[in-house]
């Protein structure tokens, strides 16, 4: 069979890497992605390993890279993706990269600092200019009309000589949300001795740091008296306002304004130069950063891998242990040879035996990847056990389709998946970041098959958007029934419902050749027929699926050399399953074939027969299906029950008998070794998994190892109970095939009857119907997609998944392995 049948052979390889060539070899292996390194220094902490200094340097470099990346992002530029193949650079290049990066980072910091300072200065100038330019009309007008240098107070102060009758001004700018508070405080503190006017600027100014436009309120306060002035200054300081000198003479102010404008113009020129220099620096960063990041990342990965190697006693070479697929061994040796001959030394790799369970490797292409993903989501298979994925490629879409069967919905799903498959190589589709779209896109082949099978089961169920089609003429003749039973028009008018009787000649003309007869979609009692059909179908499909699962276990037993399990486990399991539930399937099919309408009134009930079979009782009103039925049933039940002790005790007794000679030979030493073995289990080597191995019955070289009778018996008891009780519950669990297909059919029918049917029946005139149908069809389409395709699709997907994961896989699959995750840079290259 193909390579998906079971895991590829994976071997443990020991690599000898001379120190001079170790870096290049590992870097080459990372490019190829062939091996998974095992950590030989697990007991050493990260800070004590050999290459920790290099790792640290790489990490510092990465920090600088992050800073540069942040600066690039702030400038609104996008880093171009790295181009071409960039292998990990040799260690001596690291210094050069480090120097360059540091220099760029320092320059960038300086330039940024300058730019900030300049912008702050510019902001101040602009604010000053705005304050001066803002006209605070009444006050200035009042100041003007006096003309002379002496100002008269506008209010008479209540008593006391005035020291200073000059009006002074304080001008400044404050943030708008502080302005009311400032105004209130000024008024309360200096009541009567000041006039404050607040005005908002027309245009917002750019904030120097964040670059966002910010509004400012300018204020002009005219006051009398030195103490008032001091109070005002203190208050404005408190509110962190910007205060600027305000000259009284308008010409002086205009002169100051002109000067300010000149200054700000010069400053803007300098700022422009700075920004040009900044963009130059950023351009150099854009060139250096993408390849630099990739290279440093690879270098760090190589050093981390080297840290996992142990040093040989002569300190001349590094020893690494790695898992490698046997098929890739020649490529591995060639890669090592190539990269080490450059340095003039030679690195070698040779296979070593191992007692630990190797990782599982199953190569998939883009079609099989999604199905293998479904299986792996439950659990990665143990090394070399049978992989359920190749069968899942067909049975999963098939069981989904049994629950989803509708030609129209299946066609929509198929077309959607086809569109995705045909467009899969387009870059726009591959680069889409939306997670939900990515989920659907990764499962496009799955959806394709699901849609295809749904079309088939839709034809069998005879449902297309819940409508039946008559590809062949129906097998039921209404006319014959009407003629033979005297159904005149008057008779029909009196009776609202009439049933066709298959016993009347000419009414039933034979089974519909492909699928369910279309007459049932017109019938009021169609559910009675369909329920019976679908329930029996579910049980038949379930028993076949489970029997297939048990049969797959045969391949496991043969491959692992446990042929005794064929006789002691597989045979009893099959007998139990087929003897009881296979017999139920036989009863169903026998009744279909041999009980006709003529004896419909006294037709035997399979359910009663099945119950009586287990209770060893007899119902007189239920006639037997075939002669000597009770004898056959009793035999089958006794046989099935007899299988239970075989299943329970067979394998343990066999294993114990096989090991008893070993046990007798060294009784004392054996006991201690057993105890020591048990104690060693918890802190075994890094990849130890001994308890799992024991449960599965173990490989042959475990014969000398621990075999504890109680554990074996316990495990077998659990397996027996799980299997026997599971047979019953799992068979019933397959009835979800019936339940979900019924739900889908009913939802679809309701949607048609409530939406489309009403729309099609509206209006006698062509025009009215056409206009009304447009929104009605829109509603029908939206609800079909949302409810029937998405919701029902997800539901059927989930239940088909459950049937596979639990009912099918617990017959033969353990899923307790781990995947081979090779040391590769591929993940970092994107």
């Amino acid at each position: 069979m193909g390579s998906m049948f079971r895991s590829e052979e994976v071997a443990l390889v020991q690599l000898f890497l001379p120190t001079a060539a170790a870096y290049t070899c590992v870097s080459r292996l990372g490019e190829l992605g062939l091996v998974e390194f095992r950590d030989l220094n697990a007991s050493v902490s990260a800070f004590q390993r050999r290459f920790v200094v290099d790792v640290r340097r790489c990490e510092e470099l990465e920090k600088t890279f992050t800073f540069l990346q942040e600066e690039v992002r702030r400038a609104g530029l996008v880093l171009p993706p790295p181009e071409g193949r960039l292998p990990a650079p040799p260690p001596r290049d690291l210094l050069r990269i480090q120097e360059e990066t540091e220099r760029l980072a320092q320059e960038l910091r300086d330039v940024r600092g300058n730019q900030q300072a300049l912008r702050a200065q510019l902001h101040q100038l602009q604010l000053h200019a705005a304050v001066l330019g803002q006209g605070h009309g009444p006050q200035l007008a009042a100041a003007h009309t006096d003309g002379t240098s002496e100002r008269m107070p506008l209010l008479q102060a209540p008593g006391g000589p005035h020291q200073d009758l000059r009006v002074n001004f304080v001008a400044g700018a404050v943030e708008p949300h502080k302005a009311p508070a400032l105004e209130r405080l000024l008024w309360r503190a200096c009541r009567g001795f000041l006039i404050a006017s607040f005005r908002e600027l027309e245009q917002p100014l750019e904030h120097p740091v964040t670059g966002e436009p910010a509004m400012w309120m300018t204020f002009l306060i005219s006051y009398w008296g030195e103490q008032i002035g001091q109070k005002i200054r203190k208050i404005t300081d408190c509110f962190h306002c910007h205060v600027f000198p305000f000259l009284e003479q308008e010409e002086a102010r205009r002169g100051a304004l002109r000067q300010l404008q000149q200054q700000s113009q010069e400053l803007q020129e300098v700022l422009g130069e700075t920004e040009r220099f900044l963009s130059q620096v950023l351009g150099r960063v854009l060139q250096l950063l993408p390849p630099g990041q990739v290279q440093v990342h690879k270098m760090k990965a190589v050093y981390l891998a080297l840290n996992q190697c142990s040093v040989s006693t002569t300190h001349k070479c590094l020893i690494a242990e790695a898992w490698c697929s046997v098929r890739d061994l020649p490529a591995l040796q060639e890669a090592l040879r190539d990269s080490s001959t450059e340095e003039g030394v030679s690195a070698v790799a040779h296979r070593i035996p191992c007692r630990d369970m190797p990782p599982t490797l199953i190569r998939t292409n883009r079609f099989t990847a999604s199905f293998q993903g479904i299986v792996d989501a439950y659990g990665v298979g143990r090394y070399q056990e049978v992989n359920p994925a190749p069968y899942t490629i067909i049975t999963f879409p098939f069981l989904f389709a049994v629950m989803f069967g509708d030609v129209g919905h299946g066609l929509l799903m198929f077309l959607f998946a086809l569109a995705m498959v045909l467009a899969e190589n387009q870059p726009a589709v591959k680069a889409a970041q939306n997670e939900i779209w990515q989920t659907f896109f990764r499962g496009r082949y799955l959806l394709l098959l699901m849609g295809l099978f749904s079309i088939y089961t839709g034809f069998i169920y005879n449902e297309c958007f819940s409508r039946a089609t008559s590809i062949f003429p129906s097998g039921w003749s209404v006319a014959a029934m009407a003629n033979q039973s005297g159904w005149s028009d008057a008779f029909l008018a009196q009776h609202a419902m009439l049933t066709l009787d298959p016993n009347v000649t000419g009414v039933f003309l034979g089974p519909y050749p492909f699928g369910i007869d279309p007459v049932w979609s017109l019938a009021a009692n169609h559910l009675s027929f369909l329920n019976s059909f679908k329930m029996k179908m579910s049980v038949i499909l379930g028993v076949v699926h489970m029997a297939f699962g048990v049969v797959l276990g045969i391949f496991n037993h043969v491959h692992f050399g446990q042929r005794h399990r064929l006789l002691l486990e597989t045979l009893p399991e099959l007998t139990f399953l087929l003897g009881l539930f296979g017999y139920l399937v036989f009863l169903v099919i026998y009744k279909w074939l041999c009980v006709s309408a003529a004896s419909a009134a006294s037709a035997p009930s399979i359910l009663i027969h099945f119950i009586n079979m287990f209770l060893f009782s007899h119902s007189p009103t239920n006639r037997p299906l075939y002669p000597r039925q009770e004898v056959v049933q009793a035999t089958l039940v006794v046989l099935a029950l007899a299988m239970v002790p075989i299943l329970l005790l067979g394998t343990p007794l066999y294993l114990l008998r096989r090991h008893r000679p070993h046990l007798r030979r060294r009784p004392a030493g054996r006991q201690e070794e057993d105890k020591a073995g048990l104690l060693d289990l918890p802190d075994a080597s890094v990849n130890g998994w001994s308890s799992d191995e024991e449960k599965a019955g173990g490989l042959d070289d475990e014969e000398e190892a621990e075999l504890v009778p109680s554990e074996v018996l316990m495990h077998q008891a659990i397996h027996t109970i799980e299997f026997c009780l599971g047979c019953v519950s799992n068979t019933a669990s397959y009835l979800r095939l019936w339940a979900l297909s019924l739900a889908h059919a009913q939802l679809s029918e309701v949607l048609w009857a409530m939406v489309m049917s009403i729309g099609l029946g509206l209006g006698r005139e062509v025009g009215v119907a056409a206009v009304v149908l447009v929104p009605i069809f829109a509603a029908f389409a939206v609800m079909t997609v949302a409810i029937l395709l998405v919701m029902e699709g997800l539901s059927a997907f989930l239940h088909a998944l459950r049937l596979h994961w639990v009912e099918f896989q617990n017959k033969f699959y353990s899923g307790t392995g781990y995947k081979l995750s090779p040391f590769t840079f591929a993940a970092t290259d994107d």
Partner: protein
Amino acid sequence: MWMLSALPGRGPAHLQRPLLGPASHLGILRPAMTAHSFALPVIIFTTFWGLIGIAGPWFVPKGPNRGVIITMLVATAVCCYLFWLIAILAQLNPLFGPQLKNETIWYVRFLWE
């Protein structure tokens, strides 16, 4: 084949004789329906899925995916054939007939002639 005896007892010969029932005064002749045989669909579909599932694997070109493609062909044939077989066997000997509304009977009676 003993399975064919499971058909309702009337063979095609009976249908050739015109049936004049109570509605004969309306001039309505016997229904011109052909009986569906059971053997013919069984032979056709068994051959069809048999070709796909048993003969198909021989024609799959050699390549790394040969095993997977053969598995897919066999599994498809088994699943689809079984499903179709269940559907036709369930309708072979119906124990009760469809219950129709009188309106349905009115038009289907003349429509499905």
